[in-house]
């Protein structure tokens, strides 16, 4: 493989990795505070893309405002899901909330099929994002410049929130010890809602960037990025924001590089990633950056 092609694949992999990372953070944060795999996260991602679509087609909002509205709506949706589907089960066995999460994901997907229809819709792309820039021999679509920048900016903001603010402190306390945190007077409901809102907001940002890169939206669009991001969160160490970021990069790069280096085995790509996931879980269940 020539250097050019390698660099081309690297650039594609990094952009894909950033997208996974944004979604993975949502999984990781929710798991951190609730010890719950939020299966519906990928579907919040999907709903956010549809929010942008309908904000533009039905309410004819300009693109930027539509995105903002979609992010806010996704945050509201995330919070609502937490209130309706997870809060009542907080003291029930873990398996109940897992069932509830799977059910919620199923509900959102089928809701989308009934309301939005099953046919893929095309997603609007502003001029800059659709253009391809040629750097040397490497071709980079405009959106691939934006994605890493947006990801890093959000990671910085998030790190600030989690490590420098009171709410962040509360989140970390809850993830360490649920009951003690409550005894210390931390407002559990508010903190958990806040976590869900941030996670869902990031999913919405991820969804918008995703749809700009792959401008096709349909009710099951969240399944593939969702599972990938989730895998990333586990490989990175679920509960750790840094881990989710690194895991996202790793999974994104792997997805591309397996195909690039082993084109004959490209069909096995998904199996490879799951095998790696299983090995990580078996030999280092806390992930690369997770705590023991």
């Amino acid at each position, binding site marked *: 493989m020539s250097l050019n092609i390698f660099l081309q694949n690297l650039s594609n992999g990094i952009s894909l990795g950033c997208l996974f990372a944004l979604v993975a953070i949502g999984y990781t944060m929710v798991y951190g505070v609730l*010890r*719950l*795999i939020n299966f519906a996260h990928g579907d919040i991602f999907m709903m956010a893309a549809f929010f942008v679509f309908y904000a533009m087609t039905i309410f004819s909002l300009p693109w930027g405002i539509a995105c903002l509205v979609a992010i806010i709506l996704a945050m509201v949706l995330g919070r609502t899901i937490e209130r*309706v*589907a997870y809060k*009542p*089960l907080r003291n*029930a066995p*873990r*398996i*109940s909330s*897992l*069932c*509830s999460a*799977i*059910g*919620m994901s*199923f*509900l959102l997907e*089928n*809701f989308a*099929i*009934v309301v939005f229809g*099953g046919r893929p819709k095309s997603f609007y792309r502003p001029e800059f994002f659709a253009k391809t820039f040629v750097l040397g021999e490497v071709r980079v679509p405009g959106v691939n410049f934006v994605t890493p920048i947006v990801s890093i900016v959000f990671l910085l903001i998030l790190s600030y929130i989690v490590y420098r603010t009171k709410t962040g402190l509360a989140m970390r306390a809850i993830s360490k010890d649920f009951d003690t945190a409550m005894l210390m007077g931390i407002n559990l409901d508010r903190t958990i809602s806040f976590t869900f809102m941030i996670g869902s907001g990031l999913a919405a940002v991820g969804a918008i960037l995703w749809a700009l890169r792959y401008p096709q939206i349909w009710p099951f669009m969240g399944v593939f990025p969702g599972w990938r991001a*989730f895998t990333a969160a*586990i490989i990175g160490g679920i509960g750790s924001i840094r881990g989710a970021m690194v895991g996202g990069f790793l999974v994104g790069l792997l997805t591309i590089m397996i195909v690039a280096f082993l084109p004959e085995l490209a*069909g*096995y*790509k*998904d*199996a490879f990633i*799951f*095998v790696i*996931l*299983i090995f990580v*879980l*078996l030999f280092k*269940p806390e992930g690369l950056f997770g705590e023991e």
Partner: protein
Amino acid sequence: MIEKKKDFLLLKIATILIIILFIFVAQRNFDTYVIRILNLCGIYVILGVSLNLINGFTGQFSLGHAGFMAIGAYVSALLYMSPELKEVNYFITPLIWPLSVIQIPFVFSLIIAGLVSAGVGFLVGAPCLRLRGDYLAIVTFGFSEIIRVLFCNLQNITNGPLGLKGLPSYTNLWWSWGIAIFAVWFIKNLINSSYGRALKSIREDDIAAEAMGVNLFYHKVLSFVVGAFFAGIGGALLGSLVMTIDPNTFSFFMTFQIIIIVIVGGLGSITGTVIVGVLFAVLMEVLRSVESPMSFFGLNIPGIPGMRMLIFAILLMIVVLFFHQGLMGNREWSWEWLYYKLTRSKKEIKEGS
């Protein structure tokens, strides 16, 4: 008391006889559409009960049922298909040698399907069952996806995404209901044995169970392997009922349907699983009318595609949120239970008056 035990045994035998009589009549007189749905009922019961053994009784949340079904369906189909049929199916990439000439009777292919599936269940379960609840869910999900991807790619064994078509339809009510009854009987006895008590103790508190001398590894793997065995047979029956299988039939959605049955029926209740398994197969068909246009007191409602699954999703959420225990919780229905219920309520009435 001994007298009563005998009575219950008689009652049980009578129940089974009635079911057999029903199957006999149904297989001869019902039209194929109804028989088809009844077959599906039986298969869902097999799948549901086997998943409930893993998820409900042992408390190990597995999302890998579709993977075991896929293995069962493919193993049995490759064994009972005739060589000529295989040649027609594998028209792009020929089937590798020993498989291309083998043909064995359906019943043996079913048993081998179950055994192979159980073997894979052991290979997957042995290393993975060390993991905690939700991690196990992920690993088993990953396993079923790996199976799907492998089956798509291994074209000289599975025919890839083209799948196997025109399978002879051996599945009838005798098979599906017979095996369903056997599965229920087997798992019920397993649960009521000392093994079953060990499994339940693992579900309630694995550390305490271990302290009491329960071999965690052995019992977890046992329930996983038995579950995989019946899942494999269920998959084989489904393949022969639908007469065509391919890797995408056994996606996460398939596992999901079985999980709905188990959760709604109640994790830890065989009775619940049986009732909901049958209801699920029937409702899936009956609710079709929701999707076709209908007039309702002069009001024309256009057909909404996808409505059926939405209703299922809402029903599932209602059960999960408001009836944490599912339809039956962990109660079981039996003649004994009915008897004591009846006598006790009579007593209560007497006392009341």
